[in-house]
């Protein structure tokens, strides 16, 4: 006979307003085996936990059911509390009567009835819970950071500073990310390169950091503490150890017609190239698709001119396999594709550009060496129109539903800088709302208006036409209820940002979840913002949601701290909810082995005691508990029910089904 204790939480009025807690208590008390039932205003509070612990001790409870919020919130809290009172933590179940009851039903009678049903199901299940012991698994004291932008760099540096090894993997030939493309940063107007490059140098020089550039993640397996990752290090065709970064090769390269990605395609680069002057590592790569040597077999000039014999056309991709204790995702963002926004003439008129292109256009290291000039005729524009929210806050399917967060501020920055450098240029900004929550942000925006006379119009641009060497901009002025048209020399579109294309692929490899917009999902929106729901996988920077630089840096540090929390341990408690095989029944058909995604099951010829109580030798399944993650695929593949899952056993689930029906 079990002695089950049932605790019903009010959650203030969150539960109590829709669920008659007293009635739930009354109903569960009538269930055989329920030895104690009580309610409390906040079960998760110290008082609530005390109540539970005292009841466990005083009534000798053997099982506990807490009717409260989602187990995703407080299961761990309650299990810990039960353990402190001497009960095996896995003898506790949660009935989710908040998220899945009181919050979705308004009628109190209906809510109460459902809460009772959910409590009954949890009681039915908990009867069959068995005490479980978490195992131990070793922690590999090395972290992997995927993405070499400011987020990844900061996370890697913080981990490395704490004394742990970090590998930083970047897809592009150099680390630096989006921030390296920016000219100035708001609201202080620091030079972006000036604050970023020292960090890039730091991370490259740090003895604990290994950087893999021009590399991608190929495969991920394992689990927290024990991830195993294959990194594809793409062939650079240049020996990094010999190269001095002199740049002769790229000067002499005859193939110079490839759009320069770093300058957003505003100019061209050679086939062998160093991304930008401050690149880390400052080692060129050969873009084989555009290299004459690779495409036609003729050329080979770079090899001839290289003073240090660093060119190697035979280099091949290399797969590096490494084990990690934790992984940080810092895959950043890109701007959305504007082909659906035909009204702006983007791509048709060279003078309609995105704000990221504008950054390159005003950057001293950019295609125009920092001179603001039109891409069409090289003239300095006399009137620039900035359009905000291009593709942001858009539910029509052309853009993104969310606010890209950074556009208002960088548009103000770009407008202000234009007015500062070229006082004779008129600047008009079309906006829907100007959003400036942030330290010094609104002051910054007001300076643009008040000091720099940037003309802000609440309204949108409906159509742009090329007229001679001008652009005719049709727009609205919402406040004056008027339809306006104006002439401009350049239009800058504050294009919405979206997660990097690689996010989805990585999410699948890492089984980290992503939302509808491909941003990585955090484990809890408020309380675990840098953790993914997958243990040991953390989030840094814009891959989790739009952020500016300071926010990114602080999140990067937070992710590093979470990683350190794992790496500083020698072992981790493993999930005891793993599969287990009843060898007496197991027929050794090994259907389970075939479906196990972790290779945690294998067949072994063993001497087992058969159902007749006799010893016999036959093949049976054996589960490696360290590898098993507890998905349960094997339990269903097993026709005879020999394979079962701790914590979600056939008996437990059947009992739940029976209790509900």
């Amino acid at each position, binding site marked *: 006979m079990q002695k089950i204790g049932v605790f019903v939480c009010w959650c203030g009025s969150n539960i109590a307003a829709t669920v008659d807690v007293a009635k739930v208590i009354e109903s569960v008390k*009538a269930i055989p085996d329920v030895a104690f039932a009580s309610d409390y205003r906040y079960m998760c509070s110290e008082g609530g936990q005390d109540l539970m612990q005292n009841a466990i001790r005083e009534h000798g409870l053997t099982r506990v059911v807490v009717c409260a919020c989602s187990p995703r919130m407080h299961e761990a809290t309650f299990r810990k509390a039960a353990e402190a009172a001497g009960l095996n933590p896995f003898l506790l179940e949660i009935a989710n009567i908040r998220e899945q009851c009181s919050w979705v039903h308004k009628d109190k009678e209906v809510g109460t009835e459902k809460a009772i049903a959910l409590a009954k199901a949890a009681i039915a299940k908990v009867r069959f819970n068995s005490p479980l012991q978490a195992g131990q698994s070793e922690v590999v004291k090395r972290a992997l950071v995927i993405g070499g932008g400011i987020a990844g760099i900061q996370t890697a540096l913080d981990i490395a500073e704490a004394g742990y090894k970090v590998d930083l993997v970047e897809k592009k030939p150099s680390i630096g990310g989006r921030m390296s493309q920016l000219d100035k940063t708001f609201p202080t107007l620091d030079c972006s390169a000036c604050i970023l490059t020292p960090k890039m140098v730091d991370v490259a020089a740090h003895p604990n950091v290994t950087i893999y550039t021009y590399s991608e993640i190929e495969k991920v397996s394992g689990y927290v503490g024990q991830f195993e990752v294959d990194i594809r290090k793409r062939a650079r065709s240049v020996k990094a150890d010999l190269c001095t970064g002199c740049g002769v090769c790229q000067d002499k390269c005859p193939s110079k017609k490839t759009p320069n990605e770093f300058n957003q395609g505003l100019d061209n680069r050679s086939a062998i190239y160093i991304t930008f002057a401050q690149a880390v590592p400052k080692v060129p790569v050969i873009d084989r698709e555009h290299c004459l040597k690779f495409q036609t077999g003729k050329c080979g000039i770079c090899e001839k001119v290289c003073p240090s014999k660093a060119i190697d056309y035979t280099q091949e991709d290399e797969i590096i396999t490494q084990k990690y204790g934790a992984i940080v995702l810092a895959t950043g963002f890109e701007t959305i594709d504007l082909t659906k926004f035909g009204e702006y003439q983007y791509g048709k008129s060279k003078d309609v550009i995105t704000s990221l292109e504008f950054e390159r256009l005003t950057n001293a290291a950019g295609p125009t060496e920092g001179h603001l000039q039109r891409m069409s005729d090289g003239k300095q524009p006399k009137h620039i129109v900035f359009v905000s929210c291009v593709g942001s806050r858009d539910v029509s399917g052309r853009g993104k539903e969310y606010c890209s967060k950074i556009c208002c501020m960088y548009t103000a920055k770009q407008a202000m800088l234009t007015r500062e450098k070229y006082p004779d240029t008129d600047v008009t900004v079309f906006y829907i709302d100007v959003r400036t929550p942030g330290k010094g942000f609104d002051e910054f925006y007001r300076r643009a208006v008040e000091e720099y006379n940037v003309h802000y119009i609440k309204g949108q641009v409906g159509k742009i036409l090329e007229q001679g060497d001008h652009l005719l901009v049709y727009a609205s002025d919402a406040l004056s209820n008027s339809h306006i048209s104006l002439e401009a020399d350049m239009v800058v579109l504050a294009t919405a940002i979206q997660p990097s294309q690689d996010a989805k692929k990585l999410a699948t490899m890492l089984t980290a979840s992503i939302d509808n917009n491909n941003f990585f999902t955090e484990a809890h929106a408020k309380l675990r913002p840098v953790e993914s729901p997958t243990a040991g996988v953390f989030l840094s920077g814009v891959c989790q949601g739009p952020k500016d630089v300071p926010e990114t840096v602080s999140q990067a540090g937070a992710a590093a701290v979470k990683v350190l929390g794992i790496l500083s341990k020698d072992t981790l408690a493993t999930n005891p909810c793993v599969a287990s095989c009843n060898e007496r029944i197991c027929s050794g058909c090994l259907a389970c082995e075939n479906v196990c995604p972790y290779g945690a099951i294998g067949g072994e010829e063993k001497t087992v005691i058969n159902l*007749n109580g006799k010893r016999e030798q036959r093949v049976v399944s054996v589960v490696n508990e360290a590898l098993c993650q507890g998905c349960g695929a094997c339990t269903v593949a097993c026709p005879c029910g020999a394979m079962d899952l701790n914590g979600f056993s056939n008996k437990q689930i059947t009992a739940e089904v029976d209790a509900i029906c």
Partner: protein
Amino acid sequence: MLKINKAKWAELFAALSAQGTLYLPAEVDGKVDFTVWQDGTEVNLQATQTAKSIKNVFFPQIENLLDFKTDGLKLSVEQRMLPEEDTIAFGVRGCDVCSFEVLDKVFLKEPVDAFYKARREHCTIVSLACSAPDETCFCDTFAIDATNPGGDVTTWLVGDDLFWQANTDKGKELTEKIQALLAEGDEAGVNAQQKATKEIMAKLPLADFKIDPKIPAEQEKVFNSAIWKQLSDSCLSCCACTYVCPTCHCYDVRDFEIDNKVERFRCWDSCMCKDFTKMAAVNPRVSRLERFRQRYMHKLVYFPENNEGTFACVGCGRCLQKCPVSLNIVKVAKALGVAKDV
């Protein structure tokens, strides 16, 4: 002796049915089985054997015994009513009639099985003599006269006439109720048919099959015989033989539980099953050999020993027809008969 012509059978069945629920062999979906007669039922009196035996009527595969209910911590029990409707089992062959003798020895002995007893007492058995025995028939082995099968009433089907003879008070009572439908008949046809049937039986492959008297006599030797291994090797441990057998009578008692209500029922069980008698912790007969041996030892040795020599087999031949791998009591008894170690 009385008789009734085919033309009036429909009236006969209607009249019998008025006296109680009438079970008779009828064809459903290509198979002949005892079925409750209704207007339009396809009665088949030609088939030598029904697929399932008459046992199903008296000792159904599933029978609810009682219900109980919990209300909070209170428990209330509700006994199921005993089956008290009057029934008539019509067209029962000699072998099946004799199977009652076997079952009665089990269920009517102390402790009496109230459900079986009630069904038995409320039933009038109208037997039907065999006129076309099959090669699987061996009732003669157990001294059962298929041409004079007994029961409360015996009937013979000769040509288009069904001859009728009451044997017991119960039979006479039933006969009186339907007297109006019956005419006087001449025994000559019946006698001729009995003679012809016996001649056919003599020609069948199992005509001379007798159970060696040493089998019931030499219990220990039989039990330890080496022959069981070879015989049981090919047994599948299914229980087709048990469930079609008119004399097998083991059952298991189980609970069906939903929420706070429980239905307690009994259902057939078989000593051939691995999970037989699990309620007593384990099945003591862990190997197929032991289980296989148990069934035949019970039928041929233990049962006769406890019941004045009556074998728990009536030679209906159903197991000969239904065993997936053609194992059967005849094969076993013959093998034991010639076995050197018995």
